[in-house]
């Protein structure tokens, strides 16, 4: 078990199974098919992301460095929350990017399904956490990985 302290961007507590993307997470490419085909599991459709391609993202603790790609990204994340397909939480090793922040904040202000979001967890966090591990997020930005 190991604890990491980050910055709380969107508050909330949650415990979920980790899903780890080592490279940048392309939000549109990842959620595109899930949104279009109403895939409740939200299987990742980004063919360029070998860590996540084909894996369900719904209710997972999505651990990533940052998001990349289209500026629809925030809207896509927010829509996934409004449709009940969202990750359980978003955990960033680096400072959060503007698209992911928009998605997390839009979901917090405009939907009933907020995604607790923590950034600045550090490279060590992403090096330690593996897909399938259990992750707990506290209100204070402390993330416990076991």
């Amino acid at each position, binding site marked *: 078990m190991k604890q990491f302290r980050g910055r709380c*961007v969107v508050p909330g507590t949650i415990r979920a199974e980790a899903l780890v993307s080592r490279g*940048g997470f*392309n939000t*549109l*490419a990842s959620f*595109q098919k899930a*949104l*279009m*085909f*109403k895939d409740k599991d939200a299987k990742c459709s980004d*063919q*360029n992301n070998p860590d996540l391609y084909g894996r369900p993202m719904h209710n997972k603790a999505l651990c990533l*460095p*940052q*998001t*990349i*790609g*289209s*500026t*629809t*990204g*925030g*809207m*896509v994340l*927010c*829509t996934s929350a*409004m*449709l009940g397909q969202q990750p359980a939480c978003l955990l960033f090793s680096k400072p*959060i*990017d*503007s*698209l992911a*922040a*928009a*998605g997390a*904040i*839009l979901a*917090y*202000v*405009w*939907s009933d399904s907020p995604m607790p979001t923590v950034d600045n967890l550090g490279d060590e966090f992403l090096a330690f956490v593996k897909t399938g591990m259990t992750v707990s997020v506290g209100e204070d930005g402390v993330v416990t990985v076991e």
Partner: protein
Amino acid sequence: MAMTLTPEQRSILDGALGETRAKVMKTLVMYGETFGATKMVPVTGEFGHIVTSFGLSVMKPVYKLMDELIAGGALAGQKFSADPRPLDKNVPANALQNLVFKFMYGKQEDYEKQLAQLGILDEDAFTCTCYMDEVGNTPKEGDVLSWAESSAVVYANSVLGARCNRNSGIIELFGSIAGCVPYFGLLTDEGRKAAWIVDVKTAQKPEAQILGSAIGMKVMEDVPYVRGLDKFLGSELNDEAKAYLKDFGAATASNGAVGLYHIAGLTPEARAQGEALVAQNAKTYVVDDAELMRVRDSYPVVWKDPNAKPRLCFVGCPHLSIGQLRQWTHDIEAGLKQAGRAKVAVPTVFTTAPAVKKAFEKTAEGEKLASMGVAVSSICPLMYMNNPLCGKMPVITSSNKLRTYTSARYHTDAEILACVTKGVLQ
């Protein structure tokens, strides 16, 4: 750090103009505070640009949110353009594909009505290249914008010298509604400093789409200062250079998350400030021919049959300039002549802004291109490829952005030309 708001901004946040506008302001304040913004600054660009242009039936929550904005009187204080429409009957599609399109984009008409209420410029304002002269949403140097669409934002920042963050869909509309945006990132002098020096050391002018892809994948969201490219592009931002940078930038933004680049000796800030734009401790990335080949070879081929004959070709993501349309027309004409053909060997669609399309169709090249069997459309090819029946087809493109988001396979302009004129995919 809490943001300091003006009394007017504070009163909106506190609900003086209703709950909806308060939520808009709350969203912008939270967004800004996440990035350490201490204040809002006025949007000074004349027009906005929004990324959400498609009436996808499954995006019901977005339309509900738009209804909430309209009902709450939270309309844009400035007119705006939007990304391309998804559909055009002139783009090849069979009956089944058309049926799926009808279902997929069943909300298009309703959504466009919402956009009209919110403040869309006009019915031709649907393009990802709103900054083209023919379209007229061209910001001035130093303008503060509330835009989304990654390729438009990176172009406005880099080539036009405007100031805009990589805003998400919906957030950009909120900035146009509020008339202000949080001051952080690419709006600040510090945020426009380059964290990377990129040295281009290729033997010939690199393909814009592959160079942009390589740099995007390397620097991710950072600002690169690119040296050695002016050797190929010159020191004047003429139409050819601007078209190259449009395609280059779109690849940096979709293969990475670049919102601003500087090209030494060419782009406005690089010309004015030179290497003073490079931050201390900037990292260096050298791009040579071997590196470009490595990057290109890393692209996955997701066609079911990798040797399939292409059934469709898309050129123009982002939308083509009129100069690019003219050049392609001449190149295809020469290629067909050489191959002894009158029409293209692969169904081919060139995409461009509605206003550019109208201007091009009035030229001799416009007639010539049509006579060679090439369709000119103003759709978003990405939205076409989102149709699962279209996504299964072997489609080729010279757009790295389209490659990134769909099953379309990337080829260089020269390879595309050979394929559509000779029917041979190298």
